[in-house]
């Protein structure tokens, strides 16, 4: 059994890698079928992230598919939890400086929800300051709109 498990482990690893575009498909499989399956996995992954990070997904609009694909090229395997995959995607977008405004808020909420800090202040635009509070019921937000661009205070 131990030996059978070892053999199956390497076969399953080779198959999963191939489906994520890493390495050659193991021999004996119908490659057209594997390509269809790989495409289906990629679609499911993209859709799951789009659904669990709706603001980020919507803000990226028509570019979502293309941008998500380049993220996947750097992170070939999904996270078990689509929401975590989306969290990683949002941070990746932030590092690339292409996280849209709506996505920044979605990411900020998550950071507050996860951090040990009960509340953070988050400047989302020059004229709007956002407060995020972590409460027992979840993260609550409110914003203060400034009548004056804070940058101009120092002019």
């Amino acid at each position: 059994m131990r030996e059978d498990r070892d053999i199956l482990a390497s076969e399953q690893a080779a198959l999963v890698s191939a489906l994520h575009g890493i390495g050659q498909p193991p021999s004996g499989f119908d490659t057209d079928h594997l390509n269809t399956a790989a495409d289906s996995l990629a679609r499911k992954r993209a859709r799951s992230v789009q659904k669990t990070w709706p603001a980020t997904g919507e803000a990226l609009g028509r570019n979502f598919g293309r941008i998500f694909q380049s993220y996947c090229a750097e992170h070939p395997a999904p996270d078990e939890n689509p929401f975590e995959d989306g969290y990683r995607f949002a941070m990746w977008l932030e590092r690339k400086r292409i996280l849209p405004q709506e996505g920044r808020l979605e990411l900020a909420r998550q950071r507050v929800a996860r951090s040990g800090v009960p509340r953070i202040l988050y400047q989302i635009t020059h004229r709007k300051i956002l407060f995020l509070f972590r409460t027992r019921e979840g993260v609550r937000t409110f914003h203060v709109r400034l009548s004056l661009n804070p940058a101009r205070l120092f002019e």
Partner: protein
Amino acid sequence: VAAAGAEAVDAAGAEEDDMKRLNHPQLGLGIGWRPELALDIERRRDLGFVEIVAENIDPDAIPASLLKLREAGVQVIPHGISLSLGGAEPIDPARARRLADLARRLDSPLVSEHIAFVRAGEMEAGHLLPLPRTNAALRILIDNVKMARELLDVPLALENISALFEWPGGEMSDAEFVSRVVEETDTGLLLDVANVWANARNLDGNSIVFLRHLPLERVAYVHVAGGEERDGTYHDTHAAPVSRDILDLLAELCQMTSIPGVMLERDDHFPDSQQLNSELDAIASAFAQRQKRSVTAHA
């Protein structure tokens, strides 16, 4: 006289089926509970059960809507998607315990999982993948299922998946593989007719032949779902209405055996109340026909 004799045999066969099925509770009509559908589900009065995705429900924070259903007598079945019973590695006890925990808190009659693997080592596949149909893979699967059962206080039902490819070197048919795992582990069968239809369509099989080779007396409940055709392949997306073909296959199954319950799975592009209800009505009617037939047979 010959016709009457055949009928008697039929009735005896049905009774025998019922005897073997005594362990399976009657569930009736059901649906996969999703937050997006919660309101429509609460309003529907003829549901006997709902199925929840175990990974999406925290046992310590069960949604109020689910608890309300439970109080109204609707059964709740936790359905796992991450146990990876067909994986090369032994199962993660924490995942099985979560299923057990949900079942305990919701007083569930059973839990279910898949005949599939979802990860290899640390690498997640992102979906349910098929297993090699070899004796070696079957033994590992059986071993993992037994391990899971030891951690559960309620019966387990195993689901046949839809696959877009097959492993080379299969030593038995899909139906034999499924039959052997449920028989050798003495588990129920969660029969997904949409998956049966999809596999027949994509991998040149025959749905009816597949069904005929299954131990149908083990069916604990049935899944029905819609999908979409893309570039010549049918995808079981759970994001579209159930097709006529799949409803017909359900009706066919209900003629072959008396199933304890049947439910709709819908995961995306959620329909409005009217569409959802008419889909549930169509499923209920295929199911009710058989109920009527079996009452006549017994009378």
